[in-house]
């Protein structure tokens, strides 16, 4: 998935036609080449592609391949992190352009790792892929208390609350947050998605979440579906 070594020195992304450049960006994302992704993103914008198209076709398209190969055991965590860092380099260029365009986000999500837990690799991947899918993300970071979640729900009024935990000792805190949402009459206003290595669907049902998401790609699919269902139900 990378350029031949002897051709690399003379390789110029700007010489490639659009289709081949996008294909090359898929390869560069796969190989975690942040500088090349930034360059390819700038080239496509300069050719008149709108930011949304660059995001959807070049970056998200490439990350979907990375996600599928991770799920199939072809790629491992280091490669996924490198790819994510490369995608971030492209997103950093696209975000201000997207903001200027005034395009409405697909939805809004508040996300955070629960109290007592400092693991954020999965949460960050979900946040990035959701952002890539057109969601506005409010990231509360790690070690997030129920009060902080509740305050963020009141302030930002998101469609979705996302909670992450990597430890069996911290995952029960998700129920504490969901119970607090119920007590304050907020539960029905938000979709609650949860994720993390020790979790499963049964746990999601037990704590009262709308869904457990096995990985970032699943989170995007589920988020889009549930938001659509809620909007149809309200119409």
């Amino acid at each position, binding site marked *: 998935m990378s350029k031949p070594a002897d051709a690399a020195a003379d390789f110029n992304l700007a010489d490639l036609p659009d289709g081949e450049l996008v294909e090359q960006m898929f390869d560069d994302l796969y190989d975690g080449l942040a500088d090349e992704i930034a360059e390819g993103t700038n080239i496509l914008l300069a050719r008149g592609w709108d930011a949304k198209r660059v995001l959807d076709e070049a970056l998200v398209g490439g990350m979907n391949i990375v996600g599928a190969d991770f799920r199939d*055991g072809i790629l491992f965590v*280091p490669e996924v992190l490198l790819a994510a860092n490369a995608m971030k380099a492209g997103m950093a260029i696209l975000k201000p352009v997207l903001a200027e365009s005034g395009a409405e986000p697909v939805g809004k999500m508040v996300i955070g790792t629960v109290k007592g837990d400092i693991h954020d690799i999965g949460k960050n991947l979900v946040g990035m892929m959701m952002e890539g899918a057109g969601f506005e993300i409010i990231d509360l970071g790690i070690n997030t208390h129920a009060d902080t979640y509740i305050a963020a729900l009141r302030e930002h009024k998101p469609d979705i609350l996302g909670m992450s935990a990597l*430890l*069996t000792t911290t995952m029960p805190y998700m129920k504490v947050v969901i119970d607090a949402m119920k007590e304050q009459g907020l539960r029905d206003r938000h979709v609650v998605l949860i994720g993390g290595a*020790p979790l499963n669907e049964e746990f999601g049902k037990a704590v009262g979440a709308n869904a457990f998401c096995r990985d970032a790609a699943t989170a995007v699919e589920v988020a889009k579906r549930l938001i659509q269902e809620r909007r149809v139900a309200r119409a």
Partner: protein
Amino acid sequence: MTMPSPVLIIGCGALGRELAELKRLNGWSHVTLRCLPAELHNRPERITPALREAIESGRREFEHIFVAYADCGSRGDIERLLAAYGIERLPGAHCYEFFASGRRFAELAGAEPGTFYLTDFLVRHFDRLVRRGLGLDRHPELMRNYFGNYRRLVYLSQANDPALDEMACAHARFLGLEYRREPCGFAPFNQAVTERIIRWRS
């Protein structure tokens, strides 16, 4: 005196040395030890299928089987597999818990959630499983992704070995974390395994 029934322990490779030591110390000549590769921990979804294969193979030869794995990030898959066979495993979510004992581990985690734990095995195999396993040898820029939120490294020491202590301290420096050694010995681990094996002997 009758010979005790043969027992198979299917263990994580990360516990192989400790399990062999327990077998020697307790004189368990009726116990056979088979370990799966410790590298499975970097892909926990592969542990359960590997265990199923080892159990299927072992149940033809052994009356009793014990699995020396915790949940180990399998999302409960190991538990469900073992329930179907009526087989017990080590308690807890991962090996840190039974090396330190559940109560002590909870204290350590509560005092500093940003704690990275090493056992004797992980100290010895840090380069293979952490440095190379996480790709830090090739991509040191990933250090922040993995360890940016950690504050300290706690070495849950089984053997009282100054050389391992020195190595663990060096690993903490490599990760940029404060260092602390927590002497655990073999007692909590010994207890967790032995109580099952003794039960089958009676």
